[in-house]
């Protein structure tokens, strides 16, 4: 029932290529190196947390993969091609703080943006599209807020609107920038449930994530990043105090961080 009809834009050859593959990626940002020769092959499906201190290049990684930030070297490919040629396979959720929530729009208006590619250039949003937007809002338990102004929603609800918009894109690869930042317990539970459904449906969900204490309960894989790749792999074997300390440069207790 959940988004990625596994066929969405997936040709047979795509099934043998990793959904996200990054090679020697280097990114310069504002005169400094945000990411240095970063290489990583994402798992075929599942939930991945990208973890690291502020300024470690986590957002830069997502934005460079998407082609929003130019790369200084290396490559980033979605199913073997640059993101610009795989737009139908990708859903992007920017940081909540990156947009102006005072913008005159309802929750359904924003979720409908996830359908714009399917609707096509210059064509209007139709009633059936709005019904579809409501359906995705239902999935994040915001159905009753479809006609609410986005500015009137709580931070957690706004995060869920972004998630619903990403679901509407029916993608295979989800790149989400801090979807759990500033959310309440209800939102965290709803979103973790949606993520599990996405994993069942065969999607790859890659999240920039700040809350070290919730990595184990939400994600299967982890990428520890501090401008360079520190470690990556299954949470159980990779998300160790030792690796975390190497990422943050100081020993850090798992439970003290929120």
């Amino acid at each position: 029932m959940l988004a990625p009809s596994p066929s969405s834009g997936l040709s047979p050859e795509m099934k043998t290529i990793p959904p996200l593959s990054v090679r020697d990626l280097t990114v310069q940002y504002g005169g400094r190196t945000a990411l240095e020769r970063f290489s990583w092959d994402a798992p075929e499906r599942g939930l991945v947390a990208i973890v690291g201190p502020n300024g470690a290049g986590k957002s830069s990684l997502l934005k460079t993969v998407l082609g929003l930030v130019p790369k200084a070297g290396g490559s980033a490919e979605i199913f073997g091609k640059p993101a610009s040629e795989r737009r139908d396979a990708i859903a992007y959720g920017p940081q909540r703080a990156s947009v102006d929530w005072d913008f005159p729009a309802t929750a359904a208006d924003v979720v409908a943006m996830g359908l714009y590619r399917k609707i096509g250039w210059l064509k209007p949003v139709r009633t059936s599209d709005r019904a579809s937007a409501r359906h995705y809002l239902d999935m994040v338990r915001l159905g009753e807020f479809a006609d609410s102004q986005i500015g009137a929603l709580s931070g957690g609800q706004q995060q869920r609107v972004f998630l619903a918009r990403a679901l509407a894109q029916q993608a295979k690869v989800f790149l989400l920038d801090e979807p759990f930042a500033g959310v309440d317990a209800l939102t965290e539970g709803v979103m973790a449930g949606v993520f599990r459904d996405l994993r069942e449906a065969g999607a790859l969900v890659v999240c920039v994530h700040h809350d070290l204490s919730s990595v184990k309960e939400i994600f299967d894989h982890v990428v520890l990043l501090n401008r360079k790749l520190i470690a990556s792999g299954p949470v159980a074997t990779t998300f160790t105090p030792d690796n975390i300390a190497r990422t943050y440069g100081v020993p850090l207790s798992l439970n003290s961080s929120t």
Partner: protein
Amino acid sequence: MLGDAMGHVVLPGIVIAFVLAGSTAAWVMLAGAFGAALFSAMLVEFFRRVARIEGSAALGSVFTAMFALGVLLLEQSGVARTSFDVHHILFGNIETAIWPAATGLSSLFDPVALTSLPPQLGRLTFGLVVVALAVVVLFKELRVVSFDPDFARTIGISPQLIGALVVSLAALAAVVSLSAVGVILLVAMMVCPAATARMLTDDLKTQVWLSLLFALASGVFGYAIAVLLPLAFGYEISFGAAGTIAVVAGLFQVAAMLFGAKRGLPKTA
């Protein structure tokens, strides 16, 4: 801000076009103004990307510099003392938009009278149709680019492309409006109605329609006040209509801020 900028940057374009072509024909002025607007837009993008200056700061410095250049050219080239009426460029000349052949409503259906319609009317209608068409056809593209440009890019809608289009439309609107309200008061017409509407609604479509309504009302009431108010006090003169239109547009905004249903001042404080 964009409207303000466009109003100012078109001045040097108009002066340069006049000096080069030696004519004040409408299409010459339009071409000059349009060229200046596009050049300025590119300059702003250049400042933002290469010099990493914040958007509104780049816009502010480019449009004041362009306006200063326009004034300088106006004085140095000597056109200020020729047929080129500076006053009209700066303050507009809506009073010349008269229809001398009109004798009543029936003139609207009189082919002879219709041939003498003021030329501004054609230009303004053209501008209105082009801008309105673009807004209707590109409504969802404009919406996503305004709200979330990064997301727009990931779904293949280029914010640069849409942005360039908006700049072009703003330039077109600025140019065709020049003869009505002039450079200085152009900003009142481009910003006030939209800002007023924003106080009253949270819906983008309603916002667009309300903006049109307030713009129209400002024009009608502003013009009526300019003509009728001095008469009412027994004066034989009339105010400059551009000024009263802008004042009315401003008053609408103040009223909306005070009594606006959606925003404005808090009702209980």
